[in-house]
């Protein structure tokens, strides 16, 4: 049976003339001005709304299996759909860790039953994310993992890292690694800069990241693995990635949206909300990361969504759990940067759509024949992230109670409406 859906009156970003989109069998059948006559079972009046491709998130914690008090696949994909996402990569850092086909199958089965959007599992590169023993990466790929990461944990040493890369290279697997030298990071939880100096916070020096970036780039060059560096926080890291790429290393990179909006100053009132890994760094780093996104050295902006129960953040800063509940706010935070003139709309869109999609072999576009995964946004509207507007279990949103630009009205994934106006 052919289910059809027609969107009328939407505009593409930057374009004046409204157009219609005809969706049939989950795909975009036609895009144009003269489709209003075409028959459809459902019609969405999108006058005044902007049509965006569905966003793709390379780093999202759905907390299932094992951490139901922090969220689950149903709740967090509902939140992601509300953020305009139609594809999210599920972090392997669950309980148990996604280091076996059984866990991968479970995530996929639950997602099939309870998620309106696409969930792509990321496999653990090492067993239990211990950083010591390789996981069955080939088997995990067969079960449905699209890439491999070690969460936010470092490998035990450079030898394991090198072997992990060489093994992944053999089977043409993508490694998504968060660069971190654990010995240098030690017990730190804040950027080792002026705020940490003043408040006596335990610092994570910049070299805890940059030394790991350099090591990973050299090993990637040697092994030839396809390396994706996740959640960069330092300006120096961006420069090193650009330089490595220029000499032919196969490397891509992403940054979490909150790194583009906030700096170490966010911790100056000991606000545990902004305890994130890697830590929020200096204003110079933030500027360099923005430039990296603009120039394309950084391919993707991720949500690094980490929902928590309230108790996880209700403690003195240093003993709270890291992470923000971001997935519903990412595009609005990006629009804030666009309004301030710090980021172009084109770079923002690329970093949420084609940039991340290409890293995991997906597509994200609005074209005839493409999958109908779309968001309809009121770019002039504003909303506030509050308990009654947030769908994630995690209430520790990056910008609480302040007006945020950009209101999502509809999300459509594979031709189905997965988020609609309240």
């Amino acid at each position, binding site marked *: 049976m052919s289910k059809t859906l027609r969107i009328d009156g939407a505009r593409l970003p930057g374009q004046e003339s409204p157009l219609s989109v005809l969706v049939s069998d989950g795909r975009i059948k036609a895009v144009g001005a003269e489709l209003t006559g075409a028959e459809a079972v459902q019609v969405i009046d999108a006058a005044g709304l902007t049509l965006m491709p569905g966003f793709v998130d390379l780093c999202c914690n759905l907390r299932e299996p094992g951490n139901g008090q922090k969220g689950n696949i149903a709740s967090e994909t509902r939140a992601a759909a509300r953020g305009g996402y139609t594809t999210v990569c599920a972090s392997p850092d669950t309980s148990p860790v996604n280091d076996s086909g059984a866990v991968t199958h479970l995530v996929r089965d639950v997602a099939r039953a309870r998620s309106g959007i696409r969930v792509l599992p990321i496999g653990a590169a090492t067993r239990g994310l211990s950083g010591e023993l390789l996981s069955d990466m080939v088997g995990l790929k067969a079960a449905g993992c699209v890439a491999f990461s070690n969460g936010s944990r470092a490998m035990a040493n450079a030898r394991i890292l090198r072997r992990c890369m060489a093994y992944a290279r053999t089977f043409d697997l993508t490694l998504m690694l968060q660069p971190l030298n654990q010995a240098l990071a030690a017990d730190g939880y804040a950027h080792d800069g002026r705020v940490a100096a003043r*408040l006596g916070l335990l610092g994570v020096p910049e070299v805890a990241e940059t030394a790991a970036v350099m090591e990973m780039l050299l090993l990637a060059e040697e092994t030839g693995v396809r390396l994706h560096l996740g959640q960069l926080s330092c300006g120096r890291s961006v420069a090193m990635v650009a330089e490595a790429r220029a000499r032919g290393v196969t490397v891509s990179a992403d940054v979490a949206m909150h790194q583009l909006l906030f700096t170490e100053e966010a911790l100056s009132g000991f606000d545990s909300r902004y305890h994130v890994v890697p830590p929020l760094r200096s204003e110079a780093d933030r500027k360099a990361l923005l430039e990296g996104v603009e120039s394309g050295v950084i391919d993707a902006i991720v949500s690094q969504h980490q929902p928590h129960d309230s108790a996880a953040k209700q403690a003195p800063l*240093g003993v709270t759990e890291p992470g923000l509940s971001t997935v519903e706010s990412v595009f609005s935070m990006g629009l804030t940067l666009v309004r301030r003139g710090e980021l172009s709309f084109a770079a923002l869109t690329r970093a949420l759509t084609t940039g991340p999609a290409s890293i995991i072999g997906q597509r994200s576009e609005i074209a005839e024949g493409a999958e109908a995964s779309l968001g309809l946004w009121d770019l002039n509207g504003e909303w506030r992230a509050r308990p009654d507007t947030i769908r994630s279990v995690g209430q520790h949103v990056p910008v609480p109670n302040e007006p945020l630009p950009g209101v999502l009205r509809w999300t459509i994934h594979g031709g189905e409406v997965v988020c609609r106006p309240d």
Partner: protein
Amino acid sequence: MIPATDPVVLSAHDRASRNLQLTGDGQLRHFITLDGLDLVMLTDILDTADSFIEVGERTIKKVPLLRGRTVVNLFFESSTRTRSTFELAAKRLSADVLNLDISTSATSKGETLSDTLLNLEAMASDMFVVRHSQSGAPHFIAESVTPGVAIINAGDGRHAHPTQAMLDMLTIRQNKGSFEGLRVAIVGDILHSRVARSQIRALQTLGVAEVRLIAPGTLLPADAESLGCTIEYDMRRGMADLDVVIMLRLQKERMEGALLPSEREFYRLYGLDTEKLALAKPDCIVMHPGPINRGVEIESAVADGPQSVILNQVTNGIAIRMAVMSMAMSGQVADRAARVRAQEADQ
């Protein structure tokens, strides 16, 4: 050099700290950090402490300022000296005092910090004196857990130890008359020291000419220059023109983390001995928050010598704690009255 004469521009952090600690009409209601407290407030604390020094010299050492109030000493990190002086200060103010050594009780049974505190609040506590190993713990308690209880910070992680810093300021004022033009050095383990962070802030607010940090690179925080101090690695050179030298305690475990090679080498380079002290001004006073490691940070002859004011510091500790406890209690009472009035106006 500290730009002591520059107009004070409050950072967002200082504004937030001020708003947390002061009532709407500028009275102290918590005493957590010196950030956000201005020269007038710090001077007020010193003057109030001065008036309590006289109480300590009476036969009956009590004033009724906290009569009927319950003060709970909440020490999540063990301490004998600081806790004793807080207890004495509260008793001299006629408060009922409850000492809880939390490091060995509730939290080890899995109760969260918030739950422990809410239980204590329910016992009609008026003031918590908090020591905690985590920087920012008193902020967290005052902001999120029990905003209706006055919080006095007795030392949090590496962040702040404001009563210690203020008793040091009282000691300096007693010996030097004022803060104008003073050159003050803090020597030793700045990185891990909550005392140093509070002293730096107090000295800057009170308007000394220079705060100098003397330490090896491994015991200084990253971006130490941003604290607004002069940094000096060579102690002999750093002693020049000093009016006050404050020695910090060196913890034994610093050797294990490869921050220092040995106590002997540290003493040779950064220990205060007679020879190094002779390089300062002749009337330079020697301070130490205690407990002192003789032969590690300081030579016995210096610690016990004529320029040492280390024992004055201990006496002043009780007076300073009486001052901030009585001030915070009256601010807290004013705050409660304001809340009641606001509620009545609503109805």
